[in-house]
């Protein structure tokens, strides 16, 4: 019982968000326009409440730091980060959701029909997805992990479909849903195999079993297959090769605020899940048996898992960056760029040391801030009442909207990793972690591909500023609500000034992995005497 209550306390923020989702869904159906307009702000209010709750719950006490989790301190960092960036993502949607219909009601061209409004649903689903992402931090069970991942992704399928009407949007929604379902099936199958190999659903238990197995004969083959399948399935969430094909179409077809959302939130979910699974398998203590039958210790993850991740990371970086070179549509370009960012973060996962994982979590922040800024600029602008589509639409933006041109340039340069902007520190952290783990070839690929990315980020940053406005760009005007632009400005300025506080942020990221299996003392090759009371795992009951 005590365990149950302590678990429930830890998920207070998520509970708050779930309550919020229900309330918001109801508020959105109100016939009063004013109440409907309050929906986004209610959402923001619940997010703030969740952030505050996180700070209160994670007070650093024994119950928190010794919770039966692989990364007991991760919750504080992850939930705060997700909450803060989610506020930005909510602001992106203000004035965009239901826009045409609300205008029609205001002008008296249509009556209020609860079946036609989606504002409530949009924000409710948004909160549900955020809650799912936060729950992953508390997962210590494969089933919990699976449910949390699904909770974070199912709402996004609906959100993509909300921009109903255009054929492109329908295509995006279908593609996203079916491929998402397929990926869920893949990693669920992987989970099943992992369970079969370890005989336990608990991640901490699994870690102990795998450590014992690694110390003797090595992890059984179907356990490794399960691991590989789980990773490949999760690649869908993080838009990594081979599950990246949907990204450009879905990003382009989804409404812009939703694109911003799905380019950040599922990634956090996916990376946290992958890190937890890799933690369960263990980053060290593995060996291979060579032809002579001698056990040779290897560094890092078990060989097959390591090789899979390595190939995925390399291909993701290469294909993402090269694909982006050919794009003229901004959203497709950003889709490919988000693919390549996943590749960079995978370098940190492969490095696997505490440094590497810290770097991934830090990079998620830098990526999230830049994402909000760039999508804020895109949501805040429109061209003849439609979304801004191509890079050419933006050329000459400085003349009419210097602030947005500035934000676009800042976020593009930050994603490129130009010092001293925020993105540079993320990349530096990843690079150092990669080199320290002996993954120099991968780091070289990372550097080479980010060099390639200079070309398209330079277009994104440069064209709005260097070109003269032409007839095409005259039509670009500000969107219906100032809030997306305000979000863009705030996060854009964040790109500029957060590096001054990068130290605190990185320390927070470091603290997130403290007191976990990542502490190097625990992970040694001879686990034989390190675990005196090696309790035998419960066997699955037939």
């Amino acid at each position, binding site marked *: 019982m005590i365990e149950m209550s302590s678990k429930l306390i830890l998920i207070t923020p998520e509970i708050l968000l779930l309550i919020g989702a229900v309330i918001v869904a109801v508020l959105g159906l109100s016939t009063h326009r004013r109440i409907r307009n309050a929906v986004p702000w209610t959402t923001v209010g619940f997010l703030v409440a969740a952030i505050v709750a996180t700070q209160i719950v994670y007070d650093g006490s024994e119950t928190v730091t010794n919770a039966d989790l692989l990364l007991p301190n991760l919750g504080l960092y992850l939930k705060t980060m997700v909450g803060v960036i989610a506020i930005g993502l909510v602001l992106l949607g203000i004035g965009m959701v239901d826009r045409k219909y609300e205008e029609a009601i205001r002008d008296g061209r249509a009556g209020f029909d609860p079946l036609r409004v989606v504002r409530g649903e949009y924000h409710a689903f948004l909160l549900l997805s955020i809650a799912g992402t936060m729950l992953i931090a508390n997962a210590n069970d494969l089933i919990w992990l699976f449910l949390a991942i699904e909770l974070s992704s199912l709402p996004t399928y609906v959100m993509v479909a909300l921009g109903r009407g255009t054929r492109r949007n329908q295509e995006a929604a279908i593609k996203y849903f079916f491929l998402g379902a397929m990926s869920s099936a893949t990693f669920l199958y992987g989970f099943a195999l992992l369970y079969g190999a370890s005989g336990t659903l608990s991640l901490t238990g699994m870690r102990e079993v795998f450590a014992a197995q690694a110390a003797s004969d090595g992890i059984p083959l179907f356990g490794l297959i399960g691991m590989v399948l789980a990773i490949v399935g999760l690649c869908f969430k993080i838009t990594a090769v081979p599950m990246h094909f949907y990204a450009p179409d879905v990003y382009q077809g989804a409404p812009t605020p939703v694109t911003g959302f799905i380019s950040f939130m599922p990634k956090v979910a996916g990376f946290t899940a992958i890190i937890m699974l890799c933690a369960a398998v263990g980053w060290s203590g593995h060996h291979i048996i060579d032809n002579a039958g001698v056990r040779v210790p290897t560094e890092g993850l078990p060989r097959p898992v390591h090789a899979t991740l390595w190939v995925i990371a390399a291909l993701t970086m290469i294909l993402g960056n090269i694909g982006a070179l050919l794009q003229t549509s901004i959203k497709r370009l950003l889709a490919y760029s988000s693919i390549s960012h996943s590749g960079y973060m995978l370098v940190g996962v492969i490095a696997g040391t505490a440094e590497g994982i810290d770097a991934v979590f830090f990079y998620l922040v830098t990526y999230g801030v830049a994402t909000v800024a760039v999508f804020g600029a895109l949501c805040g602008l429109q061209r003849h009442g439609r979304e801004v589509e191509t890079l050419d639409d933006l050329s000459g933006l400085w003349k009419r909207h210097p602030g947005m041109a500035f934000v676009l340039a800042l976020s593009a340069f930050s994603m490129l990793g*130009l010092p001293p902007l925020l993105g540079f520190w993320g990349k530096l952290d990843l690079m150092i972690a990669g080199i320290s783990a002996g993954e120099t070839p991968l780091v070289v690929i990372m550097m080479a591909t980010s060099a390639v990315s200079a070309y398209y980020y330079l277009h994104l940053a*440069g064209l709005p500023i260097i070109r003269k406005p032409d007839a095409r760009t005259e039509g670009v005007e500000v969107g219906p609500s100032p809030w997306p632009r305000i979000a863009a400005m705030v996060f854009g300025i964040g790109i500029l000034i957060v590096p001054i506080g990068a130290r605190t942020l990185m320390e927070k990221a*470091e603290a997130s992995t403290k007191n976990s299996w990542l502490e190097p003392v625990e992970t040694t090759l001879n686990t034989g005497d390190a675990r005196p009371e090696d309790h035998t795992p419960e066997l699955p009951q037939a």
Partner: protein
Amino acid sequence: MQLWILLLIPLFTCVGVGFGGERNARAIALGGSLATLAWAVVLAMQFPHWQAEQWLYWPAPEANAFPVIPGLGIAVELGVDSVSLLLVLLNVFLMPCCVLGSWVAIKERRREFYIWLLVLSTCVMGVFVSRDVISFYTFFEASLVPGFFMLAIYGGPDRREASFKFFIYTFVGSLFMLLGLAYVAWQHAQQTGDWSFAISDLTTFAPTLSAGEQGWILLALLAGLAVKVPLFPLHTWLPLAHNQAPTAGSVNFAAVILKLGLYGMYVFVLPMVPEAVVTWAPTIAVLAVIGIVYAALICWVQTDVKKLIAYSSVSHMGFAVLGLLALNPLGLQGSVFYMLSHGFATGGLFLCIGMMYERYHTKDLREIGGLAFKMPVWSFFFIVLVFASVGLPGLNGFVSEFLCLIGTFTAVPGAQTGYPGVLGPWFAAVAATGMILGAMYLLYMTGKLCFGPLREPADHHEHEELPKDLSLREIAAVAPIAVVCLVFGIMPWPILHAVEPVAEAVLKPYPALVESHFEQMDAAAKVSLLTDTTLEGSR
């Protein structure tokens, strides 16, 4: 603190320019750049190590370290030695000249222009005063952004291509430089247990790495620095960028940005990877010599004046690289002196060309000539600067070219100077042909442009804002540069003396390494049946 102020003055001027309105932008920028110059002069007067016996930084970088990420040992440390202070002075000296030079040329988006100009100067100074790898890299990369926008917004007809090429070339290279430096830092952390990115820590540590690793690090560092120098065959961005940039941009690119590469070689390459330098110096020197001769030959057939001067920079920087690789104090002093004198002479030439272009809107040698009749004052300054660039004795170019070539010439295995080297007379001889070619193409250009019958473009009208010959403002921009060229030519020794202790300190490990290198080569030669004839020949 002093150096922070130096960096902040131009940045605060940017704010002033931003809020001061389109009309006042240039005046505010001029004021800010003069204030920076004044502060830099104050610093130069306070600098205690001009006559020092040792190589010292001032102020001590550790004392003013500002920790950024203590866990990784990343801290911003600033400090200058005599070489970097000289380069800072070069930069701040040219800043007001650039502002004056673009006084009327920039007609639209003025505020932005001066902001980019000031930010560019800040970044460049930041590179020179950084004493830790991360801030060096930060300023090095950040300088690309203002350069990119200056080029892309205010440049000539091919500005788009030029700006993208400029940015991407340098960015790609310097990523690998960062990789190399991070690798050194990691090795340092592995072996000492402490993360540190201070240049002093890394340079004392890196030489202990094995020769193979040093080779890779050298390759990574050169990937970033050789693009900036620029070393053949990575120079192709330069003619385009310098040609397309607005006047102030060309001046800044040629005079200061090119020095970043060479300065980086002096800060990182020489102290960090001495063994690799000894092994690879001949190869790099061959590239430098090819660059010298090849670019000089290209200059000869150029009809575009600005392009001609841009290529001449490629040729001239080759001499500075040779001087650096001669591995003796003479060569290093010459190389540092070359950085300064090339900065002044070529910067001044670009200013002059800009003034001509404002009047005639052409840079084509076939369309314009005989300007001495119409613009005698302009022609006077132009000819002085051309002579400085050619290396006429009595002007600064001569001193630097002479020192570099002497350094290269004496860089032979058994040199009596106590500094054996790996280059030798052949390198100096071939490079000297570049000097002769330089005199030929520059004088040919001068002859066409200043003398002979007056030729003006057909559709030329008198400019309403500009007098026929130089205005006082333009004289104020270019005259100080000409004076400096003359002073440096007559009295080079204060600078050479200031650089000497630095040169000796940097080169301290080299004589022994070169000796052992040749011993190894000898041993290898005895074993191998095929003797290396070129090596034997040079002995």
